[in-house]
């Protein structure tokens, strides 16, 4: 307020203001509501599988189906929302007005990331809670029909389901950071979306190439594949559905390692996005 010029330190407060605005913009867009409703509809439709009535396997199926829907729609939402919320600022030139204020570009980029991460968090929370409720309801029904199959108590580890929801959220966080990095140097929304989906596929399938080449390829190729496996995060690590539900339960050490893995990739891709965006001419 008309004071002498002083240095402007990095501010979490400003970052959160940008994040809050990004969140508000996202939830007021039809795309978010559409995908959320679609995902909720798909997860809810899993209750119709009760016709199968194949006991505990049915619960596992519902769980896998529910998380499958979450992953599909969550990935779509993450890429579409990140690209759209970034390019709406550039194309509508609102970025000009914000960046002409005393704000660091780092705060702007991470604010965008936190806003999208919050949106995806709401999506994951709602779909996970719905899935938990659905499984609980179905498990009660099956317990009443087949009490002998549940003589040791409930078979679903509901806490693990929540943890699984958090891990999916973290995976979407990595995907959002990757999308933001691509957006930071890309000229169009479409290019960003296409490249991000391409990255999504690579990250889901990179373990196949890694496993295959690790067995047969020459040393230089093995090294190349190893380097690539560090560059592209392995999204299969987040898929712990085999260990939840009826299994022995999640290994908390593994969960923490996967969470740390996600945090590192978010920091790296977020840092790359900032580096790229700092030199971008608006």
């Amino acid at each position, binding site marked *: *307020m*008309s*004071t002498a*010029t*002083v*240095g*402007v330190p990095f*501010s979490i*407060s*400003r970052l959160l*203001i*940008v994040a809050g*605005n990004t969140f*508000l*913009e996202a939830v*007021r867009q039809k795309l978010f509501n559409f995908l959320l409703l679609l995902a909720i509809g798909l997860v809810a439709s899993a209750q119709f599988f009760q016709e199968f009535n194949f006991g505990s396997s049915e619960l596992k199926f519902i769980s896998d189906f529910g998380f499958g829907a979450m992953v599909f729609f969550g990935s779509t939402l993450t890429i579409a929302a990140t690209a759209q919320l970034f390019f709406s600022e550039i194309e*509508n*030139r*609102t970025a*000009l*007005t*914000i*960046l*002409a*204020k*005393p*704000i*660091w570009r780092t705060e702007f980029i991470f604010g965008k990331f936190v806003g999208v991460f919050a949106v995806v968090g709401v999506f994951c929370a709602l779909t996970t809670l719905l899935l938990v409720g659905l499984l609980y309801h179905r498990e009660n029904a099956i317990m009443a029909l087949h009490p002998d199959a549940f003589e040791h108590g409930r078979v679903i580890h509901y806490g693990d389901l929540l943890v699984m929801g958090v891990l999916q959220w973290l995976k979407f966080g990595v995907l959002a950071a990757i999308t933001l990095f691509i957006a930071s140097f890309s000229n169009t929304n479409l290019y960003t979306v296409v490249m991000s989906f391409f990255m999504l596929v690579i990250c889901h399938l990179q373990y196949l190439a890694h496993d295959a080449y690790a067995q047969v390829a020459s040393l230089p190729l093995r090294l190349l594949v190893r380097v690539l496996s560090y560059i592209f995060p392995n999204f299969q690590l987040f898929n712990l559905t085999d260990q939840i539900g009826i299994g022995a339960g999640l290994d908390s050490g593994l969960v923490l390692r996967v969470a740390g893995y996600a945090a590192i990739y978010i920091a790296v891709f977020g840092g790359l996005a900032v580096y790229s965006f700092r*030199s971008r*001419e*608006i």
Partner: protein
Amino acid sequence: MTNPTPPVAIEIRDLTKDFPLTLRGIKLRAVDNLTLSVPEGQVFGLMGPNGSGKSTTIKIILGLLDPTVGECKVFGVPSGRVDSRLNVGYLPEAPYFYRYLSGTELVRFYGRICGVPRKRLDDRVKEVIDWVGLSGAAHRRVGTYSKGMLQRIGLAQALVHDPRLIILDEPTAGVDPVGSAEISELILKLKTQGKTVLITSHLLAQIEDVCDRVAILDKGKLILEGNMNDLVGQRGRQALIVDPLTPDQLAELRVWLKERGHALDSVEQPRARLDQLFLSRVSRAPKGENK
């Protein structure tokens, strides 16, 4: 005793900005070796045809672009630094704001970004919205605003942190003459508050009305700079406006002037300016109404 140098809000020295056009190194020179000073407390007009480098210069002042060569300082701070923007408000050309926010929410958002203390924020937001005449529409979504209202809410967000320098890039683009005149009035009010205003506009009459000093750019180069009165005033000449004279009276006047060594160069009917005529006839909507 020498006059002290007036404080400078913007200082640009030997500034050149090139944009690469192709991978083979062909570049477009948008600003070419520009040296310019904007004194504090003045309204400074930056003029030039499209593509003359005005907007590029403004973006460099705001730190949105880096100069290829040269330097630009705002209140003595290099424009690439974040703290150079602490005392700057900016209204971009044809502003587009977050459509889903109300006018109040929008100005509040920018106020928080600029670090206006929470205790003062609500009062300050109300104050600037009143000041730009949008209090009646403050709670409406920005998406429903007309162009003139967008310019005014844009001005409010530029002023919310009470900056010393306000940069207005084509503030009247697409605005009707009534809205344009109101923006001119606001600029003059800013001047009375001691603010420095840098304005670009294609409305030369508006520039002439509000600016103390102007610079004209063409193809990125500064081709003319000076005080408005020095540039457009005709020194050593006077105009007299009188009631209509008969031909005989006019002849007598010519003789009278000739006897005293003067000449009557032209006799013409004074004309009102079209914008003034328009404004005198068109009713202005109350503050906050859609225009």
